[in-house]
């Protein structure tokens, strides 16, 4: 079989399918809707995560009047260091005394004591440019300082105060990871790569969405062509494998644009939102991404692996779609690919903490490698040799699928009747079935 001849016409099929995807009203509306959702995502996440405004209005809080009515010895320099840890109150002046009635953009903090303990009360003048959420933010910053000062009044040693006011760490790890010499924290960090896990999960979700979205487009495009009775007209001009491959590539290009709009919209939304709202929750995810080995090689590994994986799924979806005769069969045709994609996603999430051998196998297996290999490479868990081996295996699978398509696709797309399941198609490939 001459592969070059089989692929002649792929470019034309790609161009036509891609342009029609871009011209489709439904797709344009979908893209606009996606962009709106992406733009709205960060403000929504910030609000749902309890985020607060960090707008110019917040930073306009000019003064904090501290009225200490207790025996606590409050140090203004300590207080300043607590406040300046947050960038939300730059230039906030600390003034001793009660809040004057006409003080604009100022908050008063009264520290008092009663039977129940120390009370911290904030007051401000209405209509003087003070937003309540800014006061709540200020209170959250001051509370730990007052707690520490309260403990100090009990005459406890500094160590005791820091133990009582500090956070407690709970760790769990295999015995082999525990070091008697007091470096348990380091060992714990090695066994639980939180950043790696976060990025693995994010990457797997994006890839899963990408693949599911793509296969639905491929299957629908093929069934539409079949049900429009265009197959005979097309097959006189273009080889079946080219007809399929051109579509797979066109859908890839379209979905890349779609995902670009989604991710670009979210990035833009983050850039804009971070100017007005507290987006520290998202900063964690960004931090996790930045902690990866994301150099040129790292990007190449991500792009090539996911591209090869996509092509495999695309060709598989094409064969499943060609076995259908009407749009009613589309969901059935999608199920085979969906099962594999979801399996790949689940294994990649669960398998991130697996041991060396399991991880190696996962990074090599065709369906799993697209999910597992890139993030494990970026986290430094596997080397480039393993990634290259996974590319080789994926290429082999793609070649087999192309040869299978060249052999079966024309028979499948001419076929009209009950949907052929994937096992029926495999039987045909072995020459045991007849369409």
């Amino acid at each position, binding site marked *: 079989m001459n592969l070059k*001849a089989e692929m002649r*016409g792929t470019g*034309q*099929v790609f*161009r*036509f399918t891609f*342009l*029609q995807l871009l*011209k*489709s009203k439904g797709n344009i509306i979908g893209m606009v809707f996606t962009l709106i959702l992406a733009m709205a995502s960060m403000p929504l996440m910030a609000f749902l995560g309890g985020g607060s405004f960090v707008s110019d209005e917040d930073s306009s809080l000019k003064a904090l009047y501290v009225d200490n009515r207790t025996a606590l010895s409050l140090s203004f320099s300590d207080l300043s260091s607590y406040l300046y840890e947050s960038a939300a109150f730059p230039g906030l002046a600390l003034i001793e005394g009660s809040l004057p009635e006409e003080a604009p953009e100022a908050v008063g903090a009264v520290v008092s004591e009663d039977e129940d303990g120390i009370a911290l009360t904030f007051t401000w003048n209405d209509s003087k440019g003070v937003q309540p959420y800014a006061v709540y933010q200020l209170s959250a910053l001051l509370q730990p300082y007052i707690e520490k000062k309260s403990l100090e009044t009990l005459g406890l040693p500094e160590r005791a105060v820091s133990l009582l006011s500090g956070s407690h760490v709970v760790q769990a790890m295999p015995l082999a990871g525990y070091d008697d010499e007091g470096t348990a924290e380091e060992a714990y960090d090695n066994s639980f790569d939180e950043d790696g896990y976060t990025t693995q999960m994010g990457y797997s979700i994006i890839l899963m969405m990408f693949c599911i979205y793509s296969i639905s487009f491929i299957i629908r495009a093929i069934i*539409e*062509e079949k049900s*429009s*009775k*265009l*197959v*005979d*007209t*097309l*097959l*006189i*001009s*273009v080889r079946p494998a080219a007809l399929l491959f051109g579509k797979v590539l066109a859908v890839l290009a379209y979905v890349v644009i779609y995902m670009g709009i989604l991710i670009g919209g979210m990035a833009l939304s983050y850039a804009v939102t971070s100017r007005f709202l507290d987006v520290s929750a998202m900063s964690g995810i960004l931090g996790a991404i930045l902690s990866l080995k994301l150099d040129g090689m790292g990007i190449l590994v991500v792009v090539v692996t996911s591209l090869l994986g996509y092509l495999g799924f695309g060709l598989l979806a094409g064969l499943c779609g060609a076995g259908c005769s009407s749009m009613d069969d589309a969901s059935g045709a999608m199920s085979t690919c969906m099962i594999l994609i979801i399996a790949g996603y689940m294994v990649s999430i669960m398998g991130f903490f697996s041991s060396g051998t399991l991880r190696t196998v996962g990074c090599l297996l065709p369906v799993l490698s697209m999910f597992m290999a890139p993030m494990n490479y970026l986290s430094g868990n596997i080397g480039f040799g393993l990634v290259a081996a996974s590319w080789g295996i994926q290429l082999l699978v793609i070649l087999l699928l192309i040869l299978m398509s060249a052999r079966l696709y*024309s*028979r499948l797309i*001419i076929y009209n009747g009950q949907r052929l399941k994937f096992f029926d198609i495999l039987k045909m490939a072995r020459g045991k079935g*007849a369409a």
Partner: protein
Amino acid sequence: MSLQVSHLHKTYGSKVVVDDLSFSMEGPGVYALLGTNGAGKTTSIRMMLGMLSRDRGEALWNGQPLSTDSCNIGYLAEERGLYPKYSLMDQLMYFASLRGVSKEESKKRIKSLAERLEVEEYLYPKAPAPSEGKKRGFAVKKKEKPKLADQLSKGNQQKIQFMTALLSDPELIVLDEPLSGLDPVNTDIIRDVIREEIEKGKYLIMSSHQMATVEEFCTDITILDRSKSILQGNLNEIKKSYGRVRLHLKCESDIKPFIQEAGAAILSEKEYEYELKVTGEEQANRLLAALIGKGIPVITFDLREPSLHEIFVEKVGEEHES
């Protein structure tokens, strides 16, 4: 140039769908593949064009395996359609590009074919007349949007599909049921285009149930019945071999007794107008002499060879009886 189709054979499981079909075209002209529904015409065409695998046999164009590499083929499939939601012009440009026709050349050919097939209005949206938009002072009428396939009637869709077969200016044109479902006006338009292509010296293979059309164009035929070729050859020779055995007779009174006496068979009858099957000129002349001898006025006396339709029905009927 020549087309040689030899021993095409195809089975699905135990069912033979095309049984050892062979035919050839040594020069330009029209070859007709005729047959009952399910006789294997479309399967034969698909195998010939390499769209369907063959169990046996080959199709050669100038001694080379027939394909779009060795021959510029135009094909109007029996199962035809268009992308329902895509613009017609986009689709035509796409089909032309798949056949390797340049963009500029495609535009010229689409324009020319659209004129010939009278579908320009669907492919070239009209710009509004300068005065149109200003009538009410505020609404400016937009240019019409390009038509989508599902906005066209079936007949017009079929004409667009017919254009796709001719876009590459093919040397071999395969038309599978080109006139089915068309009204008389559109039938005439497509017949004229087919006639023009024949005059240009193209090779045409036509499959149709419309015997009158096939008879008008074709020089050679194969009649398929239940996967087998039951009659094959030059149409004129086939007709000659049957002889002048059909008599169309019109009188002003009932002449049945004379027909029975002459031994001719009545095929159809309507108000003293008869279609008769005779054994030859001698029997027909005997009947005419008898009518004149009795002073019965004869309005029409037409002794002719059987039509393709009559040959087809007779031949297929014989096969089914045997």
